[in-house]
């Protein structure tokens, strides 16, 4: 009843369908799929660009449950006098091992500060200096301190600020707890989406003139990961199935400091605040991997403040040397925060403190925290240009699901929270403009397509006589991805994973669904999510096996240990190919200001920077 009323209130057309064929229709101008940071920021931007534009914001959970909530460390923007946009640009491009779209990075660093100030105006409780100005902290791979933070709950505060601010705009009509099954594509453009209202199991067709996908990453295709259960790559799979390529999917970020077993995240800010990484002998082993010298306090872009790919790779080497500690859940190293002191830990890293105590029974002020690398972030995603548009007219993407090109082969910590602000705004404005210029499609034709989608979906999720258990398929996928597509990869290992995924996709056709009810049937949703995960996982491993070089987070051990700019200074593009493996193609990388160079950190990095500055001056 509330649902019907709210639709009336916002001026939507409501066509109650017959009982025999339940499919409700909602007509809107812009549909946004995903209610996390990026989706909310886009919704607000679209609403501000035209207050009369009807916007429908779909989310499979209540927006404040979205995984933006778990981001801890902060958001980067050039803030201090002695910092510069060029520094942020250079850090990002070199951090991404030159696989970044440089024009896009330039736009990003230029608009970063403005967007974080905007967040401040909306109430985000950024941590402050004594004089009332916003404070910044150090972060891995960043030359100058430029990471804005709200203690160690930055994503939580940004998400709640955006969600609560979005309530100001009556033109944003939310459909919370609606699961998206497919996009409706007609006349070679996106014209809506089909969703399931989770509470009732009712299918709803949302007719729209433009769509933004903002569904987050796909970290849940790996076993040990820092991601929430909802991070299953839904939006990536939706776009992929409609012919939009997934770009640079082989680049999965392993975060070096996560909790053994659960993979829960200990923010990079732990190291930004001065934390050390120790091996079993209490030795700061990063100095052996070109990140030294080891100094008592953190120096930017050195040691513990090196980039994430390098740190996770160093863990792997320590493991090979037998320098890690064997625990119940595999090998680990130690994150030592003791010297920071309890008072500062409670002020700057309260959540980390609480997690270590509650989950691991470790008091970080007294003893080091056991940590290991786990999958954290999907650098690749739906191919998108600087204006967030995909190659399919009317389809935009933003946030972790999108590959807009600022992360390249390795994302720098604290760039993604800023990304969702900067490009969320762009996506909202661009998609709103497209929606206003696009004609409203023929309702009858679109509804017919939507009904077909409904039937197809129902046939997948009502297979009570199936033989395959969802949990088995899922755990085999996770294990295979971890074994074949981890921190270090080989062609043979990846081939095994490719074969395994093909097998799993075939077995998926016989998946069993026990729950026959309609109301809150989460088993159905898990099955649909698994379908998305399997396809996205395939895109990851097939992109990876074809990239015969080592770059950023993609490292090979089988004769391709070096970066190969001649052949692989290219984006990989995975195209959906029905039941078969994806077709892999390549596109050029835009290089404007920064030619590919050696990625150097620690003392070597400083030397290289001095040399570059001299040659710039000369």
């Amino acid at each position, binding site marked *: 009843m*509330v649902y019907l009323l709210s639709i009336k209130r916002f001026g939507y057309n409501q066509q109650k369908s017959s009982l025999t064929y339940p499919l409700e229709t909602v007509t809107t101008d812009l549909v946004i799929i995903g209610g996390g940071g990026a989706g909310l920021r886009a919704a607000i931007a679209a609403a501000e660009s035209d207050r009369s534009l009807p916007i429908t914001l779909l989310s499979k*959970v*209540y927006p*404040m*449950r*979205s*995984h933006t*909530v*778990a981001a801890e460390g902060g958001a980067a923007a050039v803030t201090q006098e002695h910092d510069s946009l060029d520094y942020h640009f250079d850090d990002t491009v070199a951090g991404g091992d030159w696989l970044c779209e440089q024009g896009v990075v330039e736009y990003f660093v230029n608009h970063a500060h*403005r967007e974080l*100030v*905007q967040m*401040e*105006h*909306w*109430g985000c*409780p*950024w*941590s*402050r*200096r*004594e*004089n*009332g100005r916003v404070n910044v902290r150090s972060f891995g791979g960043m030359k100058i301190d430029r990471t804005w933070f709200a203690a160690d*709950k930055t994503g*939580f*505060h940004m998400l*709640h600020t955006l969600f*609560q*601010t979005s*309530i*100001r705009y009556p033109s944003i009509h939310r459909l*919370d707890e609606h699961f998206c099954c497919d996009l409706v594509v007609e006349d070679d453009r996106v014209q809506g989406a089909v969703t399931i209202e989770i*509470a009732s199991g009712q299918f709803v067709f949302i007719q729209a003139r433009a769509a933004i996908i903002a569904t987050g990453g796909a970290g849940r295709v790996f076993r040990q990961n820092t991601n*929430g*259960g*909802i991070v299953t790559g839904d939006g990536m799979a939706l776009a992929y199935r409609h012919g939009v390529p997934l770009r640079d999917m082989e680049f999965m970020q392993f975060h070096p400091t996560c909790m053994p077993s*659960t993979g*829960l*995240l200990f923010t990079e800010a732990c190291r930004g605040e001065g934390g050390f990484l120790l091996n079993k002998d209490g030795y700061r082993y990063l100095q052996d991997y070109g990140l030294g010298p080891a100094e008592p306090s953190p120096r930017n872009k050195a040691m513990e403040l090196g980039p994430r790919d390098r740190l996770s790779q160093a863990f792997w080497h320590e493991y090979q040397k037998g320098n890690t500690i064997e625990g*119940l*859940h595999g090998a680990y190293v130690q994150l030592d925060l003791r010297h920071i002191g309890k008072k500062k830990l409670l002020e700057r890293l309260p*959540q980390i403190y*609480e*997690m270590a105590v*509650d*989950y691991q029974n470790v008091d970080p002020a007294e003893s080091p925290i056991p940590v290991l690398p786990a999958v954290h972030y999907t650098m690749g995603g739906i191919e998108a240009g600087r204006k967030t548009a995909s190659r399919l007219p009317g389809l935009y993407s933003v946030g972790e699901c999108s590959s807009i090109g600022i992360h390249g082969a390795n994302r720098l910590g604290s760039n993604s929270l800023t990304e969702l602000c900067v490009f969320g705004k762009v996506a909202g404005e661009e998609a709103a403009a497209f929606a206003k210029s696009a004609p409203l499609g023929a309702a009858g034709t679109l509804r017919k397509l939507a009904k077909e989608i409904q039937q197809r979906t129902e046939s997948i999720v009502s297979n009570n006589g199936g033989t395959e*258990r*969802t*949990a088995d398929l899922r755990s085999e996928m996770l294990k295979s991805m971890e074994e074949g597509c981890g921190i270090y990869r080989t062609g043979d290992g990846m081939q095994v994973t490719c074969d395994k995924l093909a097998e799993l996709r075939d077995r998926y056709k016989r998946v069993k*669904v*026990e*729950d026959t*009810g*309609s*109301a*809150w*049937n*989460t*088993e159905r949703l898990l099955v649909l999510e698994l379908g998305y995960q399997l396809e996205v996982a395939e895109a990851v491993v097939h992109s990876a096996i074809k990239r015969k070089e080592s770059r950023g987070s993609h490292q090979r051990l089988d004769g391709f240990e070096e970066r190969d700019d001649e052949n692989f200074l290219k984006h990989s593009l995975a195209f959906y190919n029905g039941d078969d493996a994806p077709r892999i193609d390549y596109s050029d990388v835009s290089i404007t200001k920064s030619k590919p160079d050696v990625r150097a950190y620690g003392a070597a990095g400083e030397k290289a920077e001095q040399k570059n500055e001299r040659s710039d001056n000369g």
Partner: protein
Amino acid sequence: MAEVEKTIEIAVLRYRPEKDTKPVSQTFEVPFTDDMSVLQGVQYIKDYLDGSLSFRWSCRMAICGSCGMMLNGEPKLACSTFLREYYPGTLQIEALKHFPIEKDLVIDASDFIDKLGSITPYIVPAEPRSVEQGEYLQTPAQKAQYDQFSACINCMLCYAACPQYGLSTNFTGPGILALLHRYNADSRDGARETRMEIVNSEEGVWGCTLVGYCSEVCPKEVDPAKAVNLNKVNSTMDYFLRFFASGKGAGK
């Protein structure tokens, strides 16, 4: 999931709206290790014992606020509570109290969400400032006035703890009143008067009888009871200020 050692009995209060007329308890035997959370136990049931069991969850680290449940009668987050705490006894799990049950452990949160939207839950600037002018200044001391109240993860445990909300859902309730106070106490905000109308109303702070259990169960130390009862003081002062103001007006 290494080395399965023990088995715990978990009794889940099930309710399947298309089958059951009222909730019924169903017991499962769940193998567990000492580091397994209650959430992992419930996930085990869904994956291997009964796929039809429904519950909400996501982040696994007590920040998304999805997995609030009654564990042996106490509202808790399933992801940060451990099975070992209930072994060797039986763990009884039930959907959050005081909310209608949609299915099994899933409650209808729409009342909470509607209330959240009704309290002007955003900054209405006390003085306008353009983005180009940079951030508003706010000292750490000013920030400390609202900091703890901004830590609410909307998990609704406090609503499940509040008998006044259980007796009448007209009461705005602890979490939302804490959020309201978060904005009233923010030095950048200028909409206190609008929100005080809610505070002063029948549905506002006076619906609270200071049971105080909300603050006990809060997993983020928001202390909603404090926010509510501080606003009883504010509401009283408001009343007298208005009283004197109108008295003066009448005297003229």
